[in-house]
């Protein structure tokens, strides 16, 4: 293919209406504490998995709420389910169960 000396960048702008909010709606029924997240990042700062991989539960929760399911799918398997984050979350989000619910939903099990 000839090289034309330029390339086209993908638009980085997120259009809210293009989000898929069906997953977050179902997960919310299974784990209502999801709504309480305030994006403080305590879970991610103490996270065992985040020490070795580019994983942030805070970011996963935000992406889920924004309807960005692809981003959630790419990250969610990195969690080692150690449960450390539950001990530190200031809002009492049931983080470990939340991760399990997301995985189940994404693997095709319908929780609700």
């Amino acid at each position: 293919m000839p090289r034309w000396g330029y390339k086209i960048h993908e638009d980085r702008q997120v259009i809210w209406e293009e989000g898929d909010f069906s997953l977050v709606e179902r997960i919310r029924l299974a784990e209502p504490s999801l709504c309480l997240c305030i994006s403080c990042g305590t879970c991610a700062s103490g996270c065992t998995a985040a020490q070795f991989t580019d994983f942030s539960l805070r970011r996963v929760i935000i992406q889920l709420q924004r309807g960005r399911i692809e981003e959630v799918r790419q990250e969610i398997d990195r969690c080692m389910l150690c449960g450390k984050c539950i001990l530190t979350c200031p809002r009492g989000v049931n983080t470990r169960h939340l991760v399990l619910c997301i995985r189940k939903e994404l693997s095709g099990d319908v929780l609700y």
Partner: protein
Amino acid sequence: MMTKTVAVIGGGPAGMEASKELAFNGFQVVLLESGARLGGHMNQWDRLFPNKRPAGEILESLYRNFPGSITVMTETNITSIGRNADRFILRTAGRDVIEADALLVCTGFRVFDAILKEEYGYGIYDNVITSVDLEQWFKEKRPVLTSHGRVPATVGFIHCVGSRDEKSGNLHCSKVCCVTAVKQAVELKEKLPEARIFCFYMDLRMFGLGYEELYKESQEKYRIQFIRGRLSEAFENMDGSLMAKVEDTLTAKPLRINLDLLVLMVGFLPSDGTAAIGSLLGLTFNPNGFLQPRDGHLQPHDTEQQGVFLAGSCKGPKNLEETLADARSAVLRIRQYLTN
């Protein structure tokens, strides 16, 4: 001993509360208000944060047992303030002359004029309103509809409009608009259960007891969505809805979202009366234009001028509890000044 007279300038909650307490303490009180009625901004509120208490209850309590001995002068503008020995001589535009032994300035605040933030489209696009407009709709029990008469499916609250914004000339935080936004978002969701409601914020300042609880309830029970990012600009779509552009800072991506109604949380500024009375008396203003007490911690009511005292939001943004407490505390200080 002759009964001493205190002139209270400004008849909002601070001025009303202070006047009552001064009268109960045996002073002669003249309460001067530039507007047509007492009560100040409380007249525009439907329900108060954080417990959604009707604002009317507060007004009622301010009027209850209002001593008949207080001389109330509404629609009164002060044009000059002079001194004769220890007494103040106030002249009004209506050529009244009032003499007093002490002055209590309770001239309060005004809200930011949202038209100045042109990129948000207030006064240009029909479906951009302010928090004051929305509160008025609630108070009048007016159904919340778009300008085309449709029930809004999406509503965005924009925090910090005219506050924390040096482009608007205001560096300060207005303190009460975060919790007001959450309160109004919850009330709106009660009226429009199907609507998706968003708050666009820079920081959420839930400083009071009960505020964080309201915020938590708004997430858990009302599913208000909080997006950390400041609106850069809003555009009108063909159908009259608005396209808002923010950065979703928590995902570090620019975000575009369509909203049927945009509510601007307008901030606290010193009122015209605060600016005018402060200049007439030669008082010190802080960098944000509010009146500066002599010592914010230790002499919160005193000014550089002997016999002139301050109370309420002429000193800076305050919630109602703080305003009323400040008014009562100013009365103690004046009593001490006039009886010694």
